[in-house]
């Protein structure tokens, strides 16, 4: 081995490295490359939990560019955990760099009292026509509005027209009952040689817990938390077991139904509108989008609301307020619907010039909301960091009852006891569809 060569190389390299490090140390802070399209002096940092997938982000950034006027916006989509820690550490340090915090209702709840009072913005937007429910939610349990409703979404059923052949006679695809939905799934399975073609996003990142929280249980029991373990809930979960037996077993791996729907593995599936849209958008003529089925108590449906809030101490407070107003204009809200499939929160005529997939979706969402027997449900409100645990309990029920074939009553009692103890420690009021009570308790 030529030690000599090594000698030279290593010493020179070390010297160079040392000098380089010394020289670059101070410059280093300045040489980072911007990754949010903007940022720096005078721009508004928009920290958000929404629109993080690559294409969705691009689309939303162009919406922002179109409506923000001369306000520079740095759009930073992150996951809920990072959203939380970033806001928390900035608020604790007393040096807030985030201008606008955008997230789902449940993302914003933990910071209620640390957001600016948006009364002035709300009164400026009084003609926008927000629904009473939304305005009440936006107060986050305080006396004044803490966020401005930004986006809303829900879940519907996407139907490949091929599957209509097996629709039970007498059933209206736009107004199904859960029994007809099950009969349809059974007929479709039988017609495909025993291969189920219905799907549900029960994968690790799938949103199937929202199906139990906002659709199945409200439709069968009229409640979500208070009725968690009553006799109606037993009926609901027994139904779920039957439905699972006629659902594509690969569903336990599906996170986004648009993928199995897109490649034809699944023909009928329930999921979040934004997670169905890609399959439908490519070939709108092959698809129908229909409201979720109705149960004995009505048509339970879950409403997802996102809001824009301004953390206290935000460096560009005035610009942030202006941006919120700009994004609340009906045109901006409709643009968001067209590009990202999230619905306007303001009252506006959606119009007929929607792209095919979005038009199908809009029709289904409207039908679902306006159904005579509709039961509005919200994702858990005010649970803070217990939120994932509560959702996990619903997933546990699915796991036990549908996958492990456990006894329904015993499973509900066991998971219900856990839910009851979480709810007892939290001491929060009930949310829709459970009846308004000072403290939400599992009956």
């Amino acid at each position: 081995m030529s030690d000599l060569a090594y000698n030279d190389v290593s010493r020179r390299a070390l010297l160079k490295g040392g000098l380089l490090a010394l020289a670059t140390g101070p410059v280093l802070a300045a040489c980072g490359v911007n990754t949010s399209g903007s940022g720096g002096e005078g721009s508004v940092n928009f920290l958000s939990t929404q629109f993080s997938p690559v294409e969705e982000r691009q689309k939303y950034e162009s919406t922002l560019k179109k409506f923000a006027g001369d306000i520079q916006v740095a759009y930073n989509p992150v996951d809920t955990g990072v959203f939380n820690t970033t806001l928390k550490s900035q608020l604790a340090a007393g040096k807030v760099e985030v201008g606008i915090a955008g997230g789902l209702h449940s993302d914003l709840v933990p910071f209620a009292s640390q957001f600016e009072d948006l009364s002035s913005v709300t009164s400026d937007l009084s003609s926008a026509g927000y629904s009473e429910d939304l305005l009440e939610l936006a107060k986050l349990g305080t006396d004044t509005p803490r966020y401005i409703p930004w986006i809303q979404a829900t879940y519907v059923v996407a139907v490949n027209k091929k599957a209509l052949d097996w629709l039970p006679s007498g059933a209206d695809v736009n107004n199904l009952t859960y029994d007809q939905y099950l009969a349809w799934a059974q007929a479709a399975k039988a017609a495909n040689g025993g291969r189920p073609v219905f799907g549900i996003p029960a994968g690790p990142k799938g949103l199937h817990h929202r199906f139990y929280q906002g659709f199945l249980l409200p439709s069968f029991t009229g409640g979500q938390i208070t009725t968690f373990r009553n006799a109606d809930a037993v009926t609901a979960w027994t139904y779920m077991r039957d439905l699972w037996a006629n659902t594509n077993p690969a569903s336990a791996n599906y996170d986004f139904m648009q993928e199995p729907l897109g490649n034809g593995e699944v023909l009928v599936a329930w999921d979040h509108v934004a997670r169905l849209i890609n399959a439908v958008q490519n070939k709108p003529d092959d698809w129908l989008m229909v409201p979720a089925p109705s149960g004995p108590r009505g048509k339970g449906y879950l409403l997802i609301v996102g809001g824009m809030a301004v953390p206290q101490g935000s460096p560009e407070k005035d610009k942030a307020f202006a941006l919120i107003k700009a994004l609340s204009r009906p045109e901006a809200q409709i643009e968001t619907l067209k590009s990202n499939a999230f619905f306007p929160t303001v009252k506006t005529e959606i119009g007929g010039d929607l792209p095919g997939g979005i038009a199908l979706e809009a029709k289904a969402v409207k039908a679902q909301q306006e159904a005579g027997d509709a039961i509005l449900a919200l994702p858990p409100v005010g649970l803070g960091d217990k939120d994932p645990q509560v959702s996990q309990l619903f997933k546990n029920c699915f796991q036990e009852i549908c996958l492990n074939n456990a006894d329904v009553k015993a499973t509900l009692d066991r998971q219900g006891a856990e839910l009851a103890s979480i709810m007892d420690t939290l001491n929060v009021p009930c949310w829709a569809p459970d009846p308004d009570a000072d403290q939400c308790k599992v009956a």
Partner: protein
Amino acid sequence: MSHTKTTETTTQAARQQPEVDRRPLARQRRNRMLLQAACIVITLFMALPIYLIALSATSSRAALQEFPLSFIPDNFSLETMETFLQSTGILGGLINSVQVGIFTLLLSLIIGVPAGYAVARFAFPGRDPYQLFLLFTRALPIVVLSVPLAQLFLQTGLYDSVIAVVLLHTALALPTTILITSSVFLGVPRDVEEAARIFGCSPVQAFLKVVMPMAIPGIAAASIFTFVMSWNEVLGASILTLNQRTLPAQVLTSLAESPLAYRFAGGFLLVVPALVFIFFMRRYLTNMWGSTIR
């Protein structure tokens, strides 16, 4: 030519001693074949996923919807890759990540190599507790570290800069750097260093000219650990930055929610630079089994 000669001699030998035991030879040959087979299996185990990711990243989106997927690149298209690279912050994130990786590497070597040398060569009070204490930074979850760090950086104005991430990654990388280099320095005989001193080297010269070159493989190994750790670290980087993300912080969480095509494109882009780095460091690393360390 020598070949024919050996066969000649062996045939001669066989003629003279017909009952020669060939079993050791056969066993050796069999072992060699097994070794080759094992090498091929391990290579496939490592290379196949990378091949599949590369294949999917360069396939058209429609091709990814087909079933079964083909194993040969018959649907070559750079469309997803291009859209992915052109989306906001991907190239910027890539540059930031490379910067963070390199600066973390330099900083952790500048601090870690002398520390490793000290741990290996000098008996000082509290050496063992010190070595144990080093591992403590890794015992704490990054979330616990990053939130107070984020507050500190916010107050000192370092927040949202490459240097903030470099400092965090250096702190995370130092334990492995120190422990790996110290174990390599232990392997460098003290006599060699003493000899250098006798021939007129100062202690620093002896370290730089004699000990360091012999410890290159260990330093290379530590570098790979450091770079790959820095490259893969997401949580700290996403908490300490806002507008100047590293690539994983920029895309990793969003990829989990993106369509399949982008997951492959992103995965491929995340794998490649680390592979390139390891490819260059490899030649230093292989010396570990060579003659450098006795």
